[in-house]
């Protein structure tokens, strides 16, 4: 009994003495991030890998190249125009412009200590194509379509042959999909039915990135630990990163405000608006425009009443833009309405259109279209984007009622939303789209091309639009390119298969003691650059 007591007392004293110092040390080198959702796969090539799993690829794996950086709104922003070395030390584009040769870093290692070779790179590129679905599509977007294009010349030399001159080929090798896998390790865990080790890589990593995945509890948290032998860039300052899933937005906010968590980048815009005005000064909100992205109201152009362009224009005049801006976005977006009517002045995208809230004009247009007393319709939005879409929908519904249009709101749960988009039968809907590769023609191809990609939810088909998009895709003359881009933007603004409302911004809130945040196109945080004071 007394022995037991002694031991207990001893343990308690030891705890009391050692714990605070240890805990403080751990806290300083550990970043605690709270988000709504975490990765559903450690392998970005896996079927159904979600957005947070892009972040895993970004940290636990390296690419041959990465992007440079610039500053936007006082926040570090990746620079799309500049490619920088990561696993590749250098590269050279052939004189005829039809291939590129990479020289790999000689000191680069995977997490298990084995060296990174060109064979690993070749295997990884082949895998991205072979896994089908999203990774394959992403590779093809840069005209990287066949395994024969990829060649391991020697241990440290890797060559990619181009099928055609495509300005997207090089940047497409710096996005998360062509991550470099440890081929030897992966092959050990492959089976005859599963030659690309898809099952094993879903739950394990075989990379050489700056962070190792120390533990992963799907749906709960992922813990990263620094890879001290990382050579592809400056060694990260953080030793550990814990990314926890906290589904309630209010709780996430409380955690940040009370200093229990260091960082969060998924919160309702209202919280960001309030946190950025916080007088206590312990918090920092970084806000950057999400490029090539839109919040919009889409309409089905193939079925009445929205097959009539006058009806669509009437809606564009009925949208309560200002109210949406203050009550749905809380100012955390960039306005895209109320510009000068007529053709756009520059090829900048997202572009401002000339519509404004003008109920009288809307009523007149609706009467012209033959609906003086309005009609009934269903207004849909994705439940997963409810924090912004729901208030938008309610405000739009209210405004439409003034035109006599009776809109029933239809919240669509996540799984159903994709199915609905594929079916293309929602009459009017609120949605958001963003393109990874920052080219307007890329956005327009996905949303308005007549080959009917998923995101052309309006079912819009116009040969003139197709021609402009296709021309701009491979245009080499900058002047002509500008004219083509302006051309399809103007076409969107007059035909109005969708009404752009605002360009989203990416908000991140962190404690004052956190620095080094940088925006990336994949909207995942890059812990390699972050440090705590």
């Amino acid at each position: 009994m007394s022995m037991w007591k002694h031991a207990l007392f001893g343990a308690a004293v030891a705890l009391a003495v050692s714990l605070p110092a240890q805990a403080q040390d751990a806290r300083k080198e550990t970043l605690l991030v709270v988000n709504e959702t975490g990765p559903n796969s450690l392998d970005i090539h896996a079927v159904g890998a979600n957005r947070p799993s892009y972040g895993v690829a970004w940290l636990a794996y390296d690419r041959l190249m990465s992007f440079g950086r610039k500053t936007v709104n006082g926040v570090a922003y990746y620079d799309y125009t500049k490619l920088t070395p990561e696993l590749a030390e250098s590269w050279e584009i052939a004189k005829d412009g039809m291939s590129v040769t990479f020289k790999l870093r000689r000191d680069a290692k995977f997490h298990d200590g084995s060296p990174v070779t060109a064979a690993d790179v070749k295997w990884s590129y082949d895998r991205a194509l072979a896994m089908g679905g999203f990774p394959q599509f992403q590779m093809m977007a840069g005209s990287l379509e066949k395994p024969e294009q990829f060649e391991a010349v020697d241990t440290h030399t890797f060559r990619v042959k181009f099928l055609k001159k495509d300005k997207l080929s090089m940047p497409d090798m710096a996005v998360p999909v062509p991550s470099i896998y440890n081929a030897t390790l992966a092959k050990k865990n492959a089976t005859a039915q599963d030659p690309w080790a898809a099952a094993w890589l879903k739950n394990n990593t075989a990379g050489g990135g700056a962070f190792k995945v120390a533990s992963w509890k799907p749906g709960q948290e992922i813990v990263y630990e620094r890879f001290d032998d990382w050579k592809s860039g400056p060694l990260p300052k953080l030793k550990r990163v814990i990314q926890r899933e906290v589904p309630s937005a209010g709780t996430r906010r409380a955690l940040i405000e009370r200093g229990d968590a260091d960082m969060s980048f998924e919160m309702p815009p209202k919280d960001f608006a309030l946190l950025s005005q916080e007088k206590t000064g312990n918090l920092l909100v970084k806000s950057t425009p999400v490029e090539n992205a839109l919040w919009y109201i889409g309409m089905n152009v193939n079925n009445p009443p929205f097959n009539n362009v006058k009806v669509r224009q009437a809606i564009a005049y009925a949208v309560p833009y200002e109210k949406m801006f203050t009550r749905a976005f809380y100012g955390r977006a960039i306005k895209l309405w109320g510009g000068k009517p007529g053709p756009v002045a520059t090829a900048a995208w997202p572009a401002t259109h000339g519509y404004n809230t003008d109920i009288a004009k809307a009523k007149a247009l609706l009467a012209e279209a033959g609906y003086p007393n309005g009609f009934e319709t269903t207004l849909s939005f994705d439940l997963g984007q409810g924090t912004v879409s729901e208030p938008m929908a309610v405000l739009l519904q209210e405004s439409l009622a003034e035109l006599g249009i009776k809109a029933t709101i239809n919240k669509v749960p996540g799984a159903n939303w994709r199915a609905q988009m594929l079916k293309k039968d929602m009459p009017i809907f609120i949605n958001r789209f963003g393109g990874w590769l920052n080219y307007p023609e890329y956005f327009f191809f996905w949303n308005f091309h007549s080959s009917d990609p998923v995101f052309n939810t309006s079912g819009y088909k116009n040969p003139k639009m197709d021609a402009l998009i296709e021309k701009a895709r491979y245009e080499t003359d900058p002047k002509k390119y500008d004219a083509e881009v302006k051309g399809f933007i103007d076409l969107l603004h007059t035909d109005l298969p969708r009404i752009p409302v605002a360009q989203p911004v990416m908000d991140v809130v962190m404690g004052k003691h956190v620095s080094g945040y940088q925006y990336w196109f994949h909207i995942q945080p890059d812990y390699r650059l972050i440090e705590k004071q």
Partner: protein
Amino acid sequence: MDMKHFKYVLKENPVTGFAFVLFGLFVLLAIFGPLIAPFDPLDSNAGEPLTPPSAQNWFGTDSFGRDIFSRVIIATRLDFGIALSAVLISFIIGSSIGCAAGFWGGWLDRVSSRVADTIMAFPLFVLAMGIVAALGNTVGNVIYATAIINLPFYMRVARAEANVRRNAGFIEAARLAGNHDVRILAVHIFPNILPPMMVQVSLNMGWAILNAAGLSFIGLGVRPPEAEWGIMVAEGATYIISGEWWVALFPGAVLMLAVFCFNLMGDGLRDLIDPRRRT
């Protein structure tokens, strides 16, 4: 169950009296709500968004600038409507099946008991979620889902009560008088099991409201911008932390009061019907 007994129970149990008064008030609100509410529940110009309670907006306004007081009042009809219809459906179906099963026994009894057991083996709230998710987000489907998960309770109570009475003297007498089985069930058994069923109804009403609110909370209930207590609490939940407590608190408090009232009434009814069984 004469007036004297009623008065006696109320005197013995003032809480029940309070519940009956409260219930009366809720019914009045449900009927005359639209006349009382100072604003249109959907009007987003009732005040500035998120203003705290004031003389103009007694319960403050929500994030759209809608008047919460008006919305809470208007919602009474919908919430009571959902709860009442759901409970009625399960009452009618559950008690007829239960009665028949208890009275005749046999295969009907076996099958219906199995069905009830199977429903009971489900995690009930998740079953309701599944039904609404599968059939779609409408008021009607919330009602059906709630009715289905309550069904076994009625079936069991009705079955037990009918079973006890099927060989009772007055039933024998009715049978000897040449009454048909169905007539005996409808005229003699059913009215007799009504009192215990009413207790179940009252308790269930509260549960039905909670259930609908829970469904709304996870986004599977009534559609926006309809005023409904659960959805209003869910909407307000995000504002609690930022200090706009009134958005969730008032609908939450009224929701609680309504459920509270039904639960107390259920107790009170039990006292009226069978004082010995009071718990």
